């Protein structure tokens, strides 16, 4: 205790003068500690394994979500929901690590991958794990799950939305495979976690819809809606039909008027033609006979040679030729017979037309009458339907809020399903082709500092310990500490 008190000082806590004296007294300690320091430094630095590492930068991209407001059913953006702590927890969760282990276990090169710890750098290949597990897949996954956590970490990047995924392993081949599986699993994890939320939302909406439907069913809401829909359709069809009937009636009415006019005109024409035809025929025949006679007379005169003709003949001939020309001008020789032939056929035809027109007129009138009857029936039906629709509309107005709610839920459900099916990860991995970097777990400076501090502490403790256990007498002070009651007279004579 006396010695221990000597080590302490009232002002400086430690008695540095005594410590300096001890350092000088036990110089061997310093030498041993220096050698130990160098040995420790070299051993610690060169005994640590070389770690292969890849840094994968990634950023949070604009994230889509669905508004809880029913009036805006479109997805909205939310960019500030991902934090480093959330990512760290998510990527170190048991479920994530297990799914990662499953993914790695299915790697074709699994047996070549080294799962030795970074601290020890020991060899623990996939083949070893498989052999230890006797090829049982669950055992392999469990063993991998236990060791995978130490191979990667997430750090904050340069900005708020940027992060860095650090993946390390004891060889380059393994680290590249780790990166591949990790990025794949992170993408899947993000999508699944977001889909999980949407699935929950869809479930709750489906539940609400079921409740709403049950209420409406109880209130016959759907039947009313169906009936209203049917009535509306019927009214629409009926109106369309009535419009068509009306148009047909109008058309038929015009047709009847036209037919009536035509029939009347034809009848009149036929009657008049029959009378005038007879007089014309008689006149034509008279003139034709006269023309024929004149021609015969002219021919008879022309048979006589001109030089034999008498002036009377010539005068008669000239006069008959003038007369013939006048008659032929009035009744051309080609039309005379034909007109006569045609007039009868035409008259007969016209009479047939008159008969047809009269028949058609009768048919049209009959049709118009039927259409008018149908129109009247439709009108009555329309009135009935409109009355029904008014009644269902009243009922629908009473259920309007519930129906609107159900409608919104359906829209929201559809929107969520759409979003769920088109979901993408909110993390975008950037280019990580920088390659694999090699380093040792602790830097030279760190190990130097560690070794120095360790050795200094050991040196200090060894000095103190030796001082405490060393009962050799080095000075008067030591004597006083051991034998305070004895007088210290001085040194004995020294002969030279």
């Amino acid at each position, binding site marked *: 205790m006396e010695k221990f008190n000597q080590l302490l000082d009232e002002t400086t806590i430690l008695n540095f003068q005594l410590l300096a004296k001890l350092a000088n007294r036990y110089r061997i300690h310093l030498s041993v500690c220096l050698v130990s320091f160098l040995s420790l430094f070299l051993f610690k630095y060169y005994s640590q394994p070389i770690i292969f590492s890849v840094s994968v930068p990634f950023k949070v991209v604009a994230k889509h979500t669905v508004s809880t407001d029913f009036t805006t059913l479109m997805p909205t953006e939310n960019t500030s929901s991902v934090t480093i702590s959330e990512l760290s927890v998510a990527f170190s969760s048991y479920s994530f690590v297990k799914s990662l282990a499953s993914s790695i276990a299915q790697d074709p090169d699994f047996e070549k991958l080294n799962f030795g710890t970074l601290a020890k750098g020991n060899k623990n290949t996939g083949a070893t794990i498989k052999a230890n597990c006797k090829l049982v897949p669950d055992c392999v996954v469990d063993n991998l799950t236990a060791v995978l956590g130490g191979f990667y970490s997430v750090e904050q990047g340069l900005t708020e939305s940027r992060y860095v995924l650090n993946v390390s392993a004891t060889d380059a081949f393994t680290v590249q495979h780790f990166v591949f599986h990790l990025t794949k699993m992170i993408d899947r994890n993000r999508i699944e976690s977001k889909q999980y939320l949407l699935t929950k939302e869809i479930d709750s909406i489906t539940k609400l819809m079921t409740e709403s439907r049950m209420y409406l069913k109880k209130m016959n809401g759907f039947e009313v809606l169906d009936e209203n829909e049917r009535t509306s359709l019927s009214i629409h069809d009926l109106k369309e039909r009535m419009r068509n009937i009306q148009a047909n009636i109008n058309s038929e009415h015009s047709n009847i008027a036209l037919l009536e006019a035509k029939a009347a005109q034809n009848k009149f024409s036929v009657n008049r033609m029959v009378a005038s035809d007879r007089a014309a025929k008689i006149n034509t025949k008279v003139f034709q006979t006269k023309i024929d006679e004149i021609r015969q007379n002219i021919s008879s005169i022309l048979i006589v040679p001109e030089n034999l003709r008498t002036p009377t003949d010539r005068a008669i001939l000239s006069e008959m030729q003038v007369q013939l020309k006048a008659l032929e001008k009035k009744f051309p020789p080609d039309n005379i017979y034909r007109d006569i032939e045609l007039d009868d056929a035409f008259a007969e035809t016209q009479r047939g037309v008159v008969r047809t027109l009269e028949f058609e007129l009768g048919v049209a009138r009959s049709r118009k009458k039927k259409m008018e009857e149908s129109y009247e029936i439709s009108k009555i039906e329309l009135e009935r339907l409109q009355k029904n629709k008014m009644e269902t509309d009243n009922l629908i107005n009473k259920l309007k809020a519930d129906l609107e709610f159900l409608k919104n839920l359906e829209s929201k459900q559809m929107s969520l399903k759409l979003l769920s099916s088109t979901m993408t990860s909110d993390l975008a991995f950037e280019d990580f082709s920088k390659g694999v970097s090699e380093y040792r777990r602790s830097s030279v400076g760190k190990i130097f500092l560690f070794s120095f501090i360790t050795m200094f502490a050991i040196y200090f403790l060894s000095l103190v310990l030796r001082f405490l256990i060393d009962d050799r007498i080095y000075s008067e002070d030591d*004597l006083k500490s051991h034998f305070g009651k004895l007088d210290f007279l*001085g040194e004995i004579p020294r002969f030279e």
Partner: protein
Amino acid sequence: MSTSKNLKLVEDLVNKSQKKNEIQSVDKIASYLSRIGNHQELFKVGKEFQEEFKKGTKNFAFTSTGFKNSQQRMILGLCCYFDSVDQYRIAIVSDHLNYGVFDDLVKNSSEKTYQLAKWRDKVKYYSYQHHFDFFDFSELLRVYDEHQYTKTFDYEIKSILDYYDIVLWDVPTIEKMKLSAQFHYRISHFYEYLSVIVSPLTSSAKQVEQVKNFFANFNLNLRSILFETNSAVEKPKRAKILGF
């Protein structure tokens, strides 16, 4: 051949030193005093003992943790000091008269005897030029052994010591004392002032404690400590640790 050569060399050295001693035997005390390297320390220590002497102490015993030579040098230094201060009658009792520091003086001393008062026996001693008288523990032991069953041993010794003003005891090593513990027990009753000589680097507190305890058993208390600072002093062998 080499052994005979070495012996010859040793003989030459002895002869040379004897010749040297003969030359210096004119005033050995002054010579010793002049050879002392730390006069101040000697005077300081001498004054302390002189103070004790003035208080009435005349028997000064010196023991150590194994430094016989240091004991003798201290005694010789004190002799020189007291001799220079006054014409004291000084007796030196040692078990190493023929070795070490006293050897030269003893050789140049004349052998004399004291006739014991009650016995017909004599005690041999060596007187150096009327400065000091040297007594050998073995001579006292012989007397003790021959008359151990009498009750007058202490009286006879005291009657001899009464001839002197100052008696300086060069106490044997503890191991040696243990061999004739009864004798030393009887003799130790004369030690009035016991000093222990320790050496830095070689003496440990444990050793000093052993010495202290040993004399405590003789009902003697250590009174003072003297320091052997000569680095040439023979260091005791280090205890083996794990066989090394």
